[in-house]
């Protein structure tokens, strides 16, 4: 997939455009959530939608997340495609029961007769100086819930393309938006905006031969930076952007790891019980004899997300990634 870079936009703008285009193309697409209408969302990601499509298509709901997701379930039962915004990661927790007990299971429960094409947009992760409850990385909860797709863009083009795909999907998608990339700018091609790999495919963002960094969402830019810095140490690092945690692209990931023989999984979420465990375990199961070193993980510490003034110590940064790369038993090679 080649994208002719023509027009710089922020990730937030690409997301807005994705919803706008989806709403224009399909009258069953409805956006709903707290402050998504008149205000355009606290991150302005739904800006303009209520104006263009009316308040019935982009609705300010009462302040109750279970109610938002629960009514979205009913709307989907009647043939609509709700796109639900949870205002922040931690404020999706009240909707957990609806998500786990209904959204993820309704298709299976009814033997396919009642699919729920709901997109749950969750701004997630830290690095924005947010106070408590505004910086959680909750992807482990969603990954452990069969029946959900869990998708997260790291580039502007993917923000558009993956959100369009998520809204078009007949399955429920938890769409995790890395808050700190909302204002990241990139060039993309608005004429081929959906010209990205499908949900379920990982993408090699930087080819390399020494070792593979496997990451997603907010940590992709950090990994790319680390890969640049690693050159000075003589390491040519490959960087994979998973894009979709569920379904998981074993093929792309394992092909890369088999090539390099070494891998580090990088994410912001806490390490223990976080996504990295699953990823490292499945790589090891599949590529054991290609591994020169154990798959290592660089993750947030196993602590509640820190207050803003301390968050930099928690977030995986370039140095921590390079330290992990250094521990990939290079001496064994010689």
């Amino acid at each position, binding site marked *: 997939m080649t994208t002719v870079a023509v027009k710089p936009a922020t990730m937030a703008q690409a997301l807005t455009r994705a919803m706008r285009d989806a709403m224009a193309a399909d009258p069953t697409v409805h956006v709903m959530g707290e402050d998504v209408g008149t205000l355009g969302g606290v991150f302005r990601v739904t800006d303009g939608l209520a104006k263009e499509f009316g308040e019935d298509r982009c609705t300010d709901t009462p302040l109750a997340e279970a109610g938002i997701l629960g009514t979205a379930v*009913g709307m989907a039962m009647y043939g609509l495609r709700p796109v639900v915004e949870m205002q922040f990661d931690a404020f999706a927790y009240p909707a957990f029961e609806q998500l786990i007990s209904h959204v993820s299971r309704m298709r299976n429960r009814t033997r396919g007769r009642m699919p729920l094409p709901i997109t749950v947009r969750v701004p997630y992760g830290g690095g924005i100086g947010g106070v408590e409850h505004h910086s959680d990385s909750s992807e482990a909860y969603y990954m452990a819930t069969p029946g959900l797709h869990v998708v997260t863009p790291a580039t502007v083009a993917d923000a558009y393309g993956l959100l369009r795909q998520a809204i078009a999907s007949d399955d429920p998608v938890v769409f995790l938006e890395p808050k700190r990339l909302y204002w990241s700018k990139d060039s993309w091609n608005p004429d081929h905006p959906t010209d990205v790999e499908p949900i379920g495919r990982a993408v090699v963002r930087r080819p390399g031969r020494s070792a593979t960094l496997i990451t997603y969402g907010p940590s992709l830019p950090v990994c790319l930076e680390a890969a640049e810095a690693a050159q000075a140490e003589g390491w040519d690092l490959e960087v994979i952007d998973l894009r979709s945690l569920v379904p998981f692209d074993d093929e792309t990931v394992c092909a890369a790891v088999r090539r390099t023989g070494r891998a580090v999984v990088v994410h912001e979420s806490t390490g223990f019980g976080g996504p990295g465990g699953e990823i490292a375990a499945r790589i090891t199961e599949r590529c054991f004899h290609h591994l020169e070193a154990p798959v290592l993980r660089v993750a947030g510490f196993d602590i509640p997300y820190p207050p803003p003034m301390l968050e930099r110590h928690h977030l995986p940064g370039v140095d921590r990634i390079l330290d992990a790369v250094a521990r990939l038993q290079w001496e064994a090679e010689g």
Partner: protein
Amino acid sequence: MTVMEQRGAYRPSPPPAWQPRMDPAPLLPDAEPYRVLGTEATAKADPDLLRRLYAQLVRGRRYNTQATALTKQGRLAVYPSSTGQEACEVAAALALEERDWLFPSYRDTLAVVARGVDPVEALTLLRGDWHSGYDPHAHRVAPLSTPLATQLPHAVGLAHAARLKGDDVVALALVGDGGTSEGDFHEALNFAAVWQAPVVFLVQNNGFAISVPLAKQTAAPSLAHKAVGYGMPGRLVDGNDAVAVHEVLSDAVRHARAGGGPTLVEAVTYRIDAHTNADDATRYRGDAEVEAWRAHDPIQLLEHELTERGLLDEAGIEAARKDAEAMAASLRERMNRDPELDPMALFDHVYAETTAQLREQRALLQAELEAEQERHGEQEGGAR
């Protein structure tokens, strides 16, 4: 700027935003549950409707006893009986038009059946061969909801969606007295009122949430009094008076269909049986209470009325009974056949399109089953 610099006009009047709002009085329920049977209002009731209700009640009771029997025969994993609550179950189904939607809770298989769903399909969840047995779209009945009150926001969303589409569809959602304590109850009613969604909430207050009596569940004058807090009318009805429940629900459905918004109906009834066949109700309630309620049996109330008014004779009673027996016999017979089980179906409906991971796991199970069959074959072969 500090306060001091802001001096000026000062208005010791009511706060500016305050306009006299909706008068709460019409939203409050009557002091006593509404009844028709045994009152003057009974004369106005349509004889045909009364007979239909009667036939359905008799069928409903028989359905309950048959399903309970099936648990003893190991044909159902569990059965939460609605014995004593048939008036609510049946009236709920009959108050709806074909295009309307019903949102049952786990106890409401009878309402589901009364709406036209095949009883065997309605019992799939409780038999345990799959989660939901019927096609929700075929009769516009949502799957039975086990997590309490979670179905209420679904009903609101569906009703709202229908209204947005311009369809005059109403959703009726059932919940128990216990379920009203859940946050989802609150959120659903609030969304419904704010959106003026065409939805009716029927609380079957049967006195208990498993072992917990109403007094430990709420301190409210009645559950119907919760309605005013959402800005919708609350109605209180004798839940064993099928005619009254039918009337109150029909009114609420009409009101919703006409754009009048949601209604909360509390039907005061009683769970005659234990919570489920697995429960021992003697641990938490006495016989006297149960007996008092048996004397207020929904079927007998209606039967008495019909007989008094000459709308039902022994032959009619017998006909209803026969019809119920036939239903029970067919149910028994069909439930005694083992359901067809396909382990591979476990993987078929998790996603619209299966994943590589599930394909792997499917293959694993397939191989296991083949190995199992081989072993069986060998053993049988060896035994011969």
